[in-house]
């Protein structure tokens, strides 16, 4: 057999082997145990829609679950459609598939949505259903509300004023009365609540801005005003930035310090160690030198006995 034929055989073998390996990898890497739902117990589809209105965008979250008996399972990989419509037209916003927790998210810009003159938009989400599970639909009528934050100083007190407005039938901004607005500062893991404002009939409210809130290194604070989940306008969010925060001081030292626990030892330690080691080994070298000299001397003298 020539070398070349041998190489061919080896290579073919390798190809087949590796393909088999990768095929087995594909099948072995399913992370989930699959049990087929063979029962024909009645299943009920539940679709929930959450609406969040920010300053210039709208976020819709749909959660699809199937109720079998007493338990509700999240349905994954289901196709849901988001639409926004008004009294005349309907726009398909997006079609997306639910994730493992049964959620599908749709985020669109507020402008360009089909709204009535008073700004009412009907958002809906639909699950077509299949041979196993019935379809479901959910909708939410929303009139986008806007929250604005204003900062002022009165009698040397820092005040925060919040106004909430909505468009009316004529398209004018009118105040939303008697709602509770929560004021937050966004932090690393969560939102820090710093106050609560009750809106009066004119849709405005004020509160004294708390002192001693840490901002960034320049003292800037991002203040968030939020109306919690509400039947009429869902979640509403407004933001603003003001330089009323305490300047943030970083813990880190300016220069890498030399301590017991730092990567670099304190200077006095290094110097002491080097001096001691040098002293000791110098003596050792002297003793070794004397031994070497003894050996050298022996070559010169003859042994006495």
């Amino acid at each position: 057999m020539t070398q070349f034929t041998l190489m061919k055989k080896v290579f073919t073998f390798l190809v087949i082997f590796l393909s088999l390996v990768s095929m087995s990898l594909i099948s072995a890497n399913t992370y989930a145990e699959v049990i087929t739902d063979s029962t024909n117990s009645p299943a009920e589809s539940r679709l929930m829609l959450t609406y969040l209105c920010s300053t210039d965008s709208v976020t819709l979250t749909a959660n699809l679950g199937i109720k079998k008996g007493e338990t509700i399972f999240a349905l994954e990989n289901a196709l849901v459609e988001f639409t926004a419509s008004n009294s005349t037209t309907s726009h398909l916003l997006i079609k997306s598939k639910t994730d493992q927790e049964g959620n599908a998210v749709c985020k669109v810009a507020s402008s360009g949505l089909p709204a009535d003159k008073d700004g009412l938009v009907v958002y809906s989400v639909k699950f077509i259903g299949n041979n196993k599970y019935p379809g479901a639909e959910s909708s939410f009528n929303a009139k986008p509300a806007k929250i604005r934050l204003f900062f002022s100083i009165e009698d040397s007190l820092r005040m925060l004023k919040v106004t909430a407005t909505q468009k009316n039938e004529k398209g004018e901004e009118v105040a939303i009365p008697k709602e509770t607005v929560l004021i937050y500062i966004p932090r690393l893991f969560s939102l820090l609540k710093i106050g609560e404002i009750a809106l009066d009939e004119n849709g405005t409210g004020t509160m004294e801005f708390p002192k001693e809130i840490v901002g960034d290194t320049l003292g800037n604070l991002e203040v968030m005003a939020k109306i919690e989940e509400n039947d009429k306008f869902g979640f509403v969010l407004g933001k603003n930035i003001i330089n009323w925060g305490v300047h943030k001081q970083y813990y880190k030292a300016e220069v890498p310090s030399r301590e017991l626990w730092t990567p670099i030892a304190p200077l006095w330690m290094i110097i002491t160690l080097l001096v001691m080691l040098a002293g000791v080994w110098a003596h050792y070298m002297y003793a070794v030198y004397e031994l070497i000299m003894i050996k050298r001397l022996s070559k010169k003298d003859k042994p006495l006995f």
Partner: protein
Amino acid sequence: MEEELNNNQKNSRRQFLKKGLIGAGIVVGGGLVAAYLDTSATETGEKVKVLTTDGDIMEVDKGLLKLPRVSREESHKGIPGRKFVMVIDLGKCKNARKCVHACQKGHHLPKGQEFMKVYLLQDSEKTAPYWFPKPCFHCDNPLCVSVCPVGATFKRSDGIVLIDNERCIGCKFCMTGCPYSTRVFAWKHYPEFDEDKEPYSPEASSPGKEGTVSKCDFCPDLIRVGKIPYCASACPMGVIYFGDVDEDTVTNGTETFQFSQLIHDRAGYRYLETLGTRPCVYYLPPVDRQFEVDRGFGDLEESVKERYKDTPYSKKNKP
């Protein structure tokens, strides 16, 4: 004759190369597909039932969220601009031990190793006993870091003290250096270590290795995706608060407080302050308790109840 042989060889070589390239393509393609379908992520053991549109019920592991792991060199640098601190509210703790179990699951620890330990302490004869959850304090003057001869444990700029398994030689000097008995040692290879298939990162403290030291790490891999540590989110009473002390905020997942205000209002303190280690975990004294101490013995396994049998409280309340 020779020319013919040569030609034959050339042809067969060409054919071989073609076949070879196709074969290689299959292998590479197969590998890519396999990698794409490879979703073997960190399993927490907690399963969630999910229905697919085909009507199949799938049991999916809840922790399929693959936490990114940084390299060993990268883990020496702290998360920039942060300094982490924990506040534990002793007034609400009832030894539910959900923090202990969540941490063990998240770090693939065997049942005998606990990064978060819950003690039943009683400071003196006439003072009241209380349940005391103790993670690593990530001290600002860490004696464990000072005594490590090879630099396996280190303090980062964000205050977190981590251990690099690859560097640790297992001399256990750090374990004697820590006055709070925080560190644990892997006395043998535990099968739970094999559950974690990801590459090792000091930020995950997983997979553990026999013959090395490990401890609570404030879960930097969770912090990097904006989540608080396993213990803080698992506690049903919201006992453990976690946050950045520079931005003066701590949260337990549901409530968020200004750190300075919380400590000021509730008289927060640090344990064994006089030792000079400057710990970064603050305790809120057990004032206005929500539960009596004996609630902490409620659902415990016998072996765990055994632990507290020599405490003054247990001795006094012997039936």
